[in-house]
């Protein structure tokens, strides 16, 4: 592998990993803070991609689709939390898995009714269409670089939100002792709602960003859900920074696995997960 193809694969791995992080960070936050296992989280990614398809067709631009799509996803997340997830906090993981698996079926069926079962494509914004030439034959698409840039900005924003703001302090405190947070006059239910809506919006944004480079297709949430769980487990359940490291690791394992060991490409990600868990059973940054 020459230096430029190595560079291309590295950039692909980073971009893929960062996109996975957008999905997985919401999954791990919702688990770490509210104790909810949400199997329907991949559906938010799918919903984002379909939202990008629908809104890009309506407005003519993916950028407008994202600007409109993020608040829609947040509203949807807040409504879902208020109507359904709020009843899961004091219930067992089995109940959570049953309800959220049921949601996957409902979301897929609704998608089928509303948009049909065809595969769609979403055009990328014109100003991001070009490529940066690397040598005579290789070049790298600007759109993929833009995805990575957006994800990095969001990861930094998430870091600042959780580590530097009072809301972040309340979120972290709430993951430890919700009664005490309430006794300080803080509405923990509102904080849960905000965290859930944020997780939904990030997964949906990942789906919107990915729409132009992958097709918008039925069941696209499933694969992302499984990989996101791998990321969450590798990083340590509940740890956002673990999810970032885990997502990059899985991005590299998947991308380079396909290049270096194509015959093992399907299992590479799981081999990495098994290796990490043998070394650190609670995940890279997991406690206990």
């Amino acid at each position: 592998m020459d230096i430029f193809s190595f560079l291309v694969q590295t950039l692909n791995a980073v971009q893929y990993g960062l996109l996975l992080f957008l999905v997985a960070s919401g999954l791990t936050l919702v688990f770490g803070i509210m104790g909810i296992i949400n199997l329907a989280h991949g559906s938010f990614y799918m919903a984002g991609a379909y939202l990008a398809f629908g809104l890009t067709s309506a407005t003519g631009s993916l950028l407008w689709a994202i600007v409109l799509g993020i608040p829609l996803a947040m509203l949807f997340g807040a409504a879902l939390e208020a109507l359904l997830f709020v009843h899961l906090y004091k219930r067992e993981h089995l109940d959570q898995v049953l309800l959220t698996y049921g949601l996957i079926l409902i979301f897929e069926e609704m998608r089928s009714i509303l948009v049909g079962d065809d595969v769609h494509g979403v055009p990328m914004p014109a100003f991001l269409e070009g490529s940066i030439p690397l040598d005579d034959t290789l070049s790298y698409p600007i759109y993929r670089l833009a995805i990575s840039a957006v994800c990095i900005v969001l990861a930094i924003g998430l870091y600042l939100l959780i580590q530097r703001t009072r809301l972040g302090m309340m979120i972290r405190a709430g993951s430890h002792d919700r009664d005490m947070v309430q006794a300080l006059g803080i509405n923990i239910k509102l904080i849960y709602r905000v965290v859930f809506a944020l997780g939904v919006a990030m997964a949906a944004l990942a789906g919107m960003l990915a729409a132009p480079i992958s097709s918008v297709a039925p069941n696209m949430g499933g694969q992302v859900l499984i990989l996101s769980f791998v990321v969450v487990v590798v990083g340590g359940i509940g740890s956002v920074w673990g999810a970032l490291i885990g997502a990059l690791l899985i991005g590299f394992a998947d991308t380079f696995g396909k290049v270096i060991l194509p015959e093992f490409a399907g299992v590479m990600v799981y081999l990495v997960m098994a290796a990490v868990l043998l070394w650190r059973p609670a995940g890279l940054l997991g406690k206990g």
Partner: protein
Amino acid sequence: MADTLFEAKELHTYYGSSHILHGVDFHVGAGESVALMGRNGMGKTTLIRSMMGIVPPRHGRILVRGDDMSRQPTYRIAQRGIAYVPEGRGIFPNLTVRENLMMAARPGVDGNCEWTFDRVMATFPRLSERLANGGGQLSGGEQQMLTIGRALMTNPSLLILDEATEGLAPLVALEIWMIVRDICASNIATVIVDKNYAALTEVADRAVVLVKGRVAYHGSSAELRGRPETIRQYLGL
């Protein structure tokens, strides 16, 4: 008596099927200090948790400044100017000392901001040396100072202290008592649960003794101090 700040009427509270409070009446006037006494398991902590709405009473009413807060969530009761330092302290070990304090900061009900971060630092100089430490890395006494400081950051009208000196070395407990005395002397009302009855009856204006979930005695703490037979009967001393 000063204006009634907090009032509980005929509280009946259950944990599951066990009936803990049997019709407790309890009130705190503005700026008043009340000693809540009784042996272990008599319902002191349950009364406090009912007052805060953490374990809502099944019957009875909770009034804060005359407003019925009986079915309100804990955070609404706290927002009416009530701060709680629980038994076992309830610090957030995953937050730094500074964050534990900053997350709670807010003006009081009447808009007063007497308790600021700087004032808490001046009151608890030992905390100012440990601002960047995680809450879980502090000694027991420092953790207690942190929870009291954090409660003060909400600029409360009423501060509830449940076993604030429990498990502390005598000198550290003495330091906490000095701070509690200052708080009692200020315009903040207090409800205090503690095993040190001598210190407690000295700082408190009034004493309420619970026996098996009922109020067995209430009167001024000076009066209770003068009745050793009552103390022996209800508190086993």
